[in-house]
């Protein structure tokens, strides 16, 4: 036993590398190699249909249990939204401004926004109101989760754009980020985009509202949100980054959105 301990180091190294090399000769099949399908975009995780189904169920349950798990809401949206994303992408392609967005791929990030310039814009302009919204509600455009489970590069951009436009929708609709405001925006989005995640959020969100908010939602805010969602122009087809100077009322008129009640 002691001679074993006294073996010279190179022998140990060779033995070890042989052992490790043998361990590395492994079966790499489609089943076991999760990296078999290439990543289509940074952060992409390829998944099989069964995995997507399980993810949808799991994330749905997790999101219901803890509504603050925004990542689970995001995963639910990605795994259930394929058809809606296709529809949205086609609407964008058929709209001249939407088509430009699909080709230029703008991103709404703190790094791409000139916050000072936007804050110095006149009151009532879209950019100024957006900055006010960010400040009042203590939110930032960088807190959106990245898309992971959409298996198409262009559709993943559409999904990402939808997430980034969500905050702008709050500004356009004049809704705060409290529970009632979020549910109202979800009703609008469900009517506009048809994403199952929005529909689920719209259906289950009201369960967490108190009686007064619920009444307000059902009688005035809700019908207004749905009506505007159906009649408004596609909100993803608007190049917001070039419209900061536009007046908010003007933009609402252009998009066919009535001011909130």
């Amino acid at each position, binding site marked *: 036993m002691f001679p074993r301990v006294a073996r010279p180091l190179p022998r140990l*190294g060779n033995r070890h590398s042989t052992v490790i090399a043998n*361990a590395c000769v492994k079966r790499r099949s489609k089943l076991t190699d999760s990296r078999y399908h290439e990543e289509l975009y940074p952060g992409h*995780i390829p998944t099989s249909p069964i995995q997507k189904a399980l*993810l949808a169920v799991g*994330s749905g349950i997790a999101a219901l249990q803890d509504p603050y798990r925004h990542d689970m809401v995001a995963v639910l949206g990605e795994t259930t939204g394929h058809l809606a994303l296709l529809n949205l992408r086609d609407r964008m392609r058929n709209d001249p401004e939407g088509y430009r967005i699909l080709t230029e791929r703008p991103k709404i990030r703190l790094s791409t926004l000139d916050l000072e310039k936007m804050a110095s814009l006149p009151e009532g302009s879209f950019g100024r109101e957006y900055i006010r919204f960010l400040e009042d509600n203590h939110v930032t455009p960088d807190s959106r989760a990245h898309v992971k489970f959409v298996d198409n590069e262009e559709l993943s951009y559409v999904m990402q754009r939808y997430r980034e436009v969500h905050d702008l929708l709050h500004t356009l609709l004049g809704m705060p980020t409290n529970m009632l405001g979020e549910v109202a925006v979800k009703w609008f989005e469900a009517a506009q985009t048809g994403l199952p995640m929005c529909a689920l959020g719209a259906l289950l969100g009201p369960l967490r509202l108190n009686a007064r908010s619920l009444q307000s939602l059902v009688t005035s805010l809700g019908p207004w949100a749905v009506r505007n969602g159906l009649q408004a122009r596609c909100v993803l087809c608007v190049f917001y980054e070039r419209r900061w100077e536009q007046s908010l009322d003007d933009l609402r008129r252009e998009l066919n959105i009535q001011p909130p009640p």
Partner: protein
Amino acid sequence: MAASVRPLLERMIFRPSAGAVSVSVADGWRPSPRCYATASCRSFSGGAAEKSTHFGFETVPESEKAKKVYTVFENVAHKYDVMNDAMSLGIHRLWKDALLRAAHPQPGARLLDVAGGTGDIAFRFLEYVGSQKGRWAGRSSWWQDICQKDPGNREEGEEGPTRDSRVVVCDINKEMLKVGRRKARRTGLADGVLWVAGDAEELPFDDAQFDIYTIAFGLRNVTHVELALREALRVLKPGGRFMCLEFSRVTDPVLARLYDAYSFQVIPLLGEVIAGDWKSYRYLVESIRRFPAQEALKELLEDAGFCRVGYRNMSGGVVSLHSGFKL
């Protein structure tokens, strides 16, 4: 990449004053005197002077592996126990119980649990030893007389079979240790445990300090397994026992396919839903595939100097318990 890099590297090694050359090799490569002398580079991308190793199914420089593993466990620390229960359907508790039963520690034993972050083994050890104490106390009085009177048994300040056991939990990851300490306070077992941040490849303990060394599901995350084994040998007392609980190769082919499918299809999914981290759990299942199998690990243990090395498969080979003695 390796073939084209080798001649370039050879030029750089033998002409270090060749000036700045942009080389797309692994990060951290420096032409140092060590490179001139080292002939036995344990290299997996042949020719590169920077040793590389596996990180799951990826190949990364050795210097990066430790950092990446640290990040994985930092991310999963708070959901580690929940995920263990979810992934193994609670069976990991049985495996850990089996480890303690095999070790059969007696009151007074000193345990070092390496990579034992959240304290599962440590707490089980204290409970086991506590129940053993109960059995010793119930024995006939003449046995207790022998134990107390025998001078060899007594150390200064301690009394026979009732002396306290100690467990040291050593983990490189501070988040995991934090979670473990919080658990200890909650379960009231905080007194018997010492929490130490340390590297398994370079333990911050003197020689011959411990009766038992355990490492449960941690050895496959160590960059240099043989260094960890040599450190284990060093800190064990003569007669001390090394025990390693680790995922291993499933022996039955049908079960192996089911296990593979479950590992790669379901586990990262559970990681995403419960812990919000798909990639860390994909690393975990990949690292299991890259770790040596039962016999290979047994050889490594024998090389490191352990005697009477043996292993026992559990759950059809999903997990294997390796044991060796320092004699």
